[in-house]
């Protein structure tokens, strides 16, 4: 298909570089420099989408980021991306795009029946119709969601790479139109570190669509090229085209998304060698918001017919892309800027049938120019009807009544294939609003403009972004702001001369008219659309008003106005102003909307960057990790650590392997890698005092060379960690913590020392990774150790349980702790990590004759559960006191104070019927309860039943020859011997309450 609406010359596209693309399965051709939108228009394609609620045929409204209609599904397969705006998609060769929200095709859409039933789909209809009765909603939801869908989410993982970076700037300038470029020149010349960003592929902003403007005596486009060349030559200036500043956060941090390769074919070598998109986080001393303004459409009857467009959008398509939206335009306006559009169209050879101006007596230079060029001007007229369904083919115009609320004359038909409207311009205050600056209403331009920035959010809005629309003002504003921010950052060089704009036509006054009347009252014939993307009409706003939803927040939620993916960029002011009209108050009295990030949607990929898969979180491995791998161990994740779970022999299931490991520890000797234990070195004259404060038990009398188990409470009396701490010397302790709790405990201890007891002399060092730990446990452990550590005295007298010594093991100097987590005689050997593999191998070799068995975390858990040893975080959940665990024995009654002590006396914590830790033995010894199973005492046929606790640990114990479980149960210690019930998965398991000790309850085996 030929480019029927491509102009023969003009524009910034490169006609020597044709590009092929496919839209809805049909091949087309465009040029390098086109957007998908401009290329579609050049090919005469005006129908590009269906609306969200009514499935109305829609065309392009705009040429930029504000586009509500032309939402596109771009690309295929795992690279497919929904909801992109055709106006922002740069064309590349081979591009494949599809329209959205239509079935089966754009021209024939079954969903359009919604339009016929619009009376049952008024605003608020979700609430009115489907939320009650609730069961109805469940039936309708599926259907409605499908009918009201946006694009499709790809189901395969995203194959592209993304990147993130942080940077700083003296001045971050958002928007590279005249004001932004002038600001960058001034700040850059003064020597400041400048970042200039623009969302489009080419910098220049409005100047790229301007045929008339001159700056410093040059045509605007030449000035832009020269300015950008000057900026590029400055070493401290960074130019970021294709980069949208989407979020303005606290303390002047602005997030940018750079589309690095989106303009390239995604599988081209050039695209594949770079990240697809890059997220920038810029901390700027000053932010200059040169974000321009967005034109508002007029709200007239059936203003959503394809090719009802913003006047400035048509100007951009014609001037910048050499692509005419149609052959013959009708312009509808309340201000002068649309006249320039009409003049530019005529200059480009596109005919303008009439300018319909709602003002009674439009006067001014541009009006005069249009008149002198022979363009018919219909003053005090309205467009009252748009003809054509899939594309505009004409309008009817009528004279306005004197109050502007109705029309008087008979309709006059004018044939045309596009309607270009302008209701004035709204400064793009989104980022300013995100920075939490307040906006104020400017009645001269009928728009919100930035007021003062929030303290600490240093920003300056310049040019059109603050409602100063003339080119001269933009340049003066931008230059002054750039110079000011460089000066504030301490740069004293000259900012150079202010760029000077050529003569511009003066603009006449606007007429305030938020709804263009038609022959019938609102809502009685056709639709006046305000929010195109969410299908909100003027009649919906009127309905919200009638039903009392009159503040901006109510209006938004009731009608869904401004809540689509475009955040109402073209509709918010029109809706607010109409509501103000209906209420008879001023616009600011209705309220303003607060804009939130992102300005335009951002991919999740950009946020995650490379932080995915293996890079999501660091993996911590012990020095013995490779041995575990070689011996087939699967790994269990504990915090960031990967710990060996069990070591299956060929043909063994997990159950087999764990049973074998657990038995070996009880009958011979097991070996375990315990290097992940948290370890904190504590030194200083007040170290013992400190331990007395952070643990529940007493530490002053612990002799050097001895170890003690400690329980750590939060100030609320709840158990937060446990572990064994050893006194290495009078003022030197070695604390161990749970693997997962190490960092938290360290921060907790530091907190108290720094904030509450800064005068105490205690020094903490994390030594978790400085010591590898190998545990050998079982009746043969001491024999084995004697062989590899011949100098070590191992008899119970010289090296009893809960003591510590230095020793040489397999030639390596070790700290040897005699402590146990299995209930068997256990030696924990601590050594520098680089020696761990040597010691492990020596033990494995010497232990072969005893059948030494490496065991993993699963066997470790079974072994400790057999003994009833708790795991903090498994038996406890932050609401568990020592008494709840039956560990009153470890809570000192003598110590005057320790963290958590007072809270143990609170009425609730000392309640006797709290949930207690108990053991559970199932009636069927082979039934292993699931951890987390809920427990009931009073069993009923079906829920609800009172749940009195849950299973915290549950295993099959080969040493007990049956299943064992621990649980927390309300008033559990007073239920010993009772039978309780665990209903789950359609059955009920019975279990008897016991002490939480299943094996060697007297602890005789500790001494080997």
């Amino acid at each position, binding site marked *: 298909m030929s480019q029927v609406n491509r102009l023969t010359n003009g524009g910034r596209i490169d006609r020597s570089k044709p590009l092929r693309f496919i839209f809805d399965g049909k091949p087309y051709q465009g040029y390098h420099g086109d957007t998908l939108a401009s290329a579609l228009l050049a090919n005469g394609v005006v129908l590009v989408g269906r609306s969200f609620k009514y499935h109305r045929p829609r065309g392009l409204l705009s040429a930029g980021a504000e586009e509500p209609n032309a939402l596109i599904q771009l690309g295929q397969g795992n690279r497919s991306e929904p909801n992109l705006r055709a106006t922002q998609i740069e064309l590349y060769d081979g591009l494949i795009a599809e329209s959205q929200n239509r079935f089966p095709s754009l021209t024939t859409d079954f969903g359009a029946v919604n339009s016929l039933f619009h009376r049952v789909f008024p605003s608020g209809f979700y609430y009115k119709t489907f939320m009650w009765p609730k069961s109805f909603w469940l039936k309708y939801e599926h259907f409605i969601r499908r009918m009201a869908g946006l694009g499709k989410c790809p189901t395969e993982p995203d194959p592209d790479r993304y990147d993130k970076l*942080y940077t700083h700037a003296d001045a971050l300038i958002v928007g590279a139109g005249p004001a932004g470029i002038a600001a960058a020149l001034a700040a850059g010349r003064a020597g400041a570190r400048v970042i200039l960003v623009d969302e489009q592929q080419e910098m220049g902003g409005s100047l790229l669509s301007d045929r008339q403007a001159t700056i410093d005596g040059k045509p605007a486009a030449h000035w832009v090229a020269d300015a950008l060349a000057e900026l590029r030559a400055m070493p401290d200036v960074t130019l970021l085209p294709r980069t949208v500043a989407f979020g303005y956060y606290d303390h002047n941090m602005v997030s940018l998304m750079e589309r690095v390769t989106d303009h390239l074919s995604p599988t081209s070598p050039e695209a594949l060698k770079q990240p697809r998109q890059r997220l920038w986080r810029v*901390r700027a001393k000053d932010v200059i918001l040169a974000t321009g303004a967005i034109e508002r459409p007029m709200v007239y009857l059936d203003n959503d017919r394809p090719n009802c467009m913003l006047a400035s959008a048509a100007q951009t398509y014609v001037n910048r892309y050499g692509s005419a939206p149609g052959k013959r335009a009708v312009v509808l306006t309340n201000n002068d800027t649309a006249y320039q559009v009409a003049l530019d169209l005529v200059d480009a050879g596109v005919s303008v049938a009439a300018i319909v101006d709602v003002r009674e007596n439009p006067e001014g230079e541009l009006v005069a120019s249009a008149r002198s060029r022979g363009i018919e001007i219909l003053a005090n007229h309205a467009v009252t009807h748009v003809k054509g369904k899939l594309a505009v083919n004409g309008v009817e115009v009528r004279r306005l009544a004197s109050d502007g609320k109705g029309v008087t004359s008979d309709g006059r038909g004018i044939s045309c294939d596009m309607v270009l409207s302008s209701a004035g311009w709204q400064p793009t205050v989104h980022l300013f609003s995100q920075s939490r600056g307040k906006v104020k209403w400017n009645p001269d331009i009928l728009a919100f403009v930035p007021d003062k920035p929030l*303290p600490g959010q240093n920003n300056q809005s310049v040019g059109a972004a603050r409602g100063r629309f003339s080119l001269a003002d933009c340049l003066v504003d931008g230059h002054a702001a750039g110079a000011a921010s460089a000066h504030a950052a301490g740069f004293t060089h000259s900012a150079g001369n202010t760029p000077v704009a050529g003569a511009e036509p003066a603009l006449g006054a606007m007429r305030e008219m938020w709804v263009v009347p038609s022959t019938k009252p609102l809502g009685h014939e056709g639709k006046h659309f305000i929010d195109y993307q969410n299908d909100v009409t003027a009649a919906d706003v009127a309905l919200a008003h009638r039903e009392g939803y009159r503040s901006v927040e109510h209006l938004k939620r009731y009608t869904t106005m401004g809540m689509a993916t475009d955040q109402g960029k073209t509709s918010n002011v029109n809706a607010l102003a109409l509501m103000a009209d209906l209420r008879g108050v001023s616009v600011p009295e209705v309220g303003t909307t607060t804009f939130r990030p992102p300005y335009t949607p951002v991919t999740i990929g950009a946020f995650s960057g490379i932080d995915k898969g293996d890079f999501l979180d660091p993996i911590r491995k012990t020095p013995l990790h490779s041995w575990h791998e070689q011996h087939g161990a699967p790994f269990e994740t504990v915090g960031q650590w990967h710990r060996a779970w069990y070591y299956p022999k060929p043909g063994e299931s997990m159950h087999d392997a764990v049973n074998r490991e657990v038995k070996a520890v009880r009958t011979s000797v097991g070996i375990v890698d315990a290097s992940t234990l948290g370890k904190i070195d504590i030194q200083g004259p007040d170290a013992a005092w400190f331990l007395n404060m952070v643990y529940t038990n007493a530490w002053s009398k612990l002799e050097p060379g001895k170890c003690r188990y400690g329980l750590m409470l939060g*100030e609320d009396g709840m158990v937060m960690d446990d572990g064994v701490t050893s006194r290495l010397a009078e003022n030197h302790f070695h604390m161990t913590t749970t693997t997962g709790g190490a960092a938290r405990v360290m921060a907790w201890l530091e907190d108290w020392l720094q904030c509450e007891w800064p005068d105490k002399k205690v020094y903490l060092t994390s030594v978790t990774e400085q010591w590898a730990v190998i545990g050998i446990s079982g009746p043969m452990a001491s024999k084995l150790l004697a062989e590899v550590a011949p100098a070590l005295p191992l008899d119970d007298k010289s090296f009893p349980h809960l003591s510590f010594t230095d020793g040489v093991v397999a030639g390596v100097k070790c700290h040897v702790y005699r402590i146990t987590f299995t209930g068997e005689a256990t030696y924990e050997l601590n050594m520098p990590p680089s020696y761990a593999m040597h010691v492990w191998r020596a033990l494995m070799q010497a232990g072969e004759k005893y059948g030494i068995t490496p065991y993993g975390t699963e066997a470790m858990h079974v072994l400790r559960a057999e003994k009833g040893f708790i795991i903090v975080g498994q038996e406890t959940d932050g609401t568990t006191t020592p008494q709840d665990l039956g560990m009153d024995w470890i809570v000192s009654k003598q110590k005057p104070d320790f963290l958590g002590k*007072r809270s143990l006396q609170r*009425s609730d914590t000392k309640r006797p019927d709290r949930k207690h830790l108990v053991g559970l033995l199932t009636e069927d010894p082979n039934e292993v309860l699931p951890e987390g199973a809920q427990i009931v005492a009073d069993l009923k046929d079906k829920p609800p039943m009172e749940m009195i606790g849950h299973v915290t640990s549950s295993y099959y114990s080969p040493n007990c020859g049956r299943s064992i479980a621990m649980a927390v149960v309300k008033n559990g210690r007073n239920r010993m011997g009772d039978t309780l019930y665990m209903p789950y998965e359609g059955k009920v398991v019975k279990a008897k309450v016991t002490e939480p000790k299943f094996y060697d309850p007297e602890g005789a085996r500790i001494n080997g």
Partner: protein
Amino acid sequence: MLLIPCPYCGKRDEHEFTYAREGHIARPTNGAELSDADWAQYLFMRKNPKGVHYERWMHAKGCRRYFNVARDTVTHEIYAVYEMGQPKPEIDRGNGR
């Protein structure tokens, strides 16, 4: 995302820090003598002011020092940072601050 001036390291991004609760709440040394209500006051009750809030932060991914911050909960403006043990500074929010 705040920019927090650590008194020891200088201005750093918020993600290097951990919020460490309201400041200037001394731990009672006579806990045993306090009523449940008074103890609960220390343990649970925290201010949630609109305006200046005196709070602790810790430079977790830096010097690991705790320090005090006087921050405006509305604007996030940081009026002062000061070391542990220093008294609350008077914050003058007049004159456009």
